């Protein structure tokens, strides 16, 4: 509720980070996947949460990240709370280190993200394996992490456009 009131005050554009993340989340669960990748989908929401936590953490508060994670769990039919947990942890980590990322160039951010994507994959594998009481196929999740790293520049470019929109309206 608090978040909503705040948004009203400062206009609709402040919901762009939240809305752009929702849009990426919906793209993730669309039934048409990338050809030849056998139902592997990059973690688009991870990229969005990472991006906004680095550049505009105030516009994607932890409650919003939690809600987005929960929504992803519900729409994908996965373990309830899994993505919520992992995305909240990502935000906490980025926020603790975030100031170090801001001044760096894109390549540095990408390299940090490579590490982040692998750790994210590993943890989601661990949580899912525990939840389903059976060790899951590790190669799938590795593929998903690599795919995420590969689409990172494109998604960041798109989110950059959203951020540019934020700035220009801000003036």
């Amino acid at each position, binding site marked *: 509720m608090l978040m909503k009131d705040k948004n009203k005050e400062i206009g609709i554009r402040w919901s762009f980070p939240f809305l752009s993340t929702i849009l990426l989340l919906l793209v993730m669960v669309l039934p*048409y996947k990338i050809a030849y990748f056998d139902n592997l*989908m990059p973690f688009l929401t991870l990229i969005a949460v990472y991006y906004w936590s680095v550049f505009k953490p105030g516009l994607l508060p932890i409650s919003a990240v939690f809600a987005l994670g929960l929504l992803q769990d519900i729409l994908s039919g996965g*373990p309830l*709370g899994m993505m919520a947990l992992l995305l909240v942890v990502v935000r906490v980590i980025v926020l603790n280190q975030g100031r170090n990322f801001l001044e760096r160039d894109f390549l540095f951010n990408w390299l940090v993200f490579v590490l982040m994507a692998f750790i994210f994959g590993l943890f989601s594998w661990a949580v899912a394996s525990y939840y389903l009481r059976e060790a899951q196929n590790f190669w799938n999740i590795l593929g998903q992490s690599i795919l995420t790293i590969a689409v990172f520049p494109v998604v960041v470019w798109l989110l950059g456009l959203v951020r540019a929109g934020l700035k220009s309206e801000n003036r």
Partner: protein
Amino acid sequence: MKGFGQGVSSIFFILLALALLIFGRSNNLAVEKSRSAVFNVFVPVLDVLSRPFEAADDLMNWVEEVAVVFSENKRLREENIRLRQLQVTASQLAIDNQRLKKLLNIKEGSITNVATSRVVSDSGSPFVKSVLINSGADDGVRKGQAVVNEEGIIGRTINVGSGSARILLATDINSRIPVKLAASGINMIMEGDNSPDPKLSFLPLGKEIAVGDVVLTSGFGKIFPPDLPVGQVIEITEDQTIRVRLAANMRRLNYVTILNYDIGQNLNKLTLPEEKGQ
């Protein structure tokens, strides 16, 4: 002070997520209902969003089909001749079958076509194999109904909202479907393990199974009507892992049909002793 507040809220949300993971695990009704309430809101959005993708997919299909239209035509003509011969035999067998069933007093379950709906969302995760469709309780869809397409079985409904429903695919790790081998009638269970090809388990001792065997639903379990096409055995490893290639193409699910299966009472009585014998 701000840092402290942030720390507290981080810990709060992490604990909340953990609690959900632990307590949301049991399939309690409240959790299921809130889940379906949420996806019910998003299914219309996904329905609209996925339309352009469907159009693009259709176009790709069309191009592929045009490319092979001549050879496909030739093949289909030949198949047509063969099928016409089979049709005569099949109608004779159907008459025979009906007569014999009457003699045995078998009452077949009634199968009703509840709805045909569009797949609007796919879990897109290696850990869950499920899809959302755009029909729900308002269209007569209930939890625990069979879902098929023209090729074979797909899965079953597990969570139903008013205008949408979640389908657990046959490939999901939680999927168990009673099946039989078409040739020998041996009953087995098909277990998903999140891989594209589910496993067959509970092969009775001393029974034979071979690659290429056709798998059908057995009709036990009261969800799937008997004799629906499931797939074909494609692999038998040394440690007796039997894998089935599903007849339905799970990578490209556009439209599916939900079936309601009301089991006849006599069928129950007839099949029970057979089950015990194995």
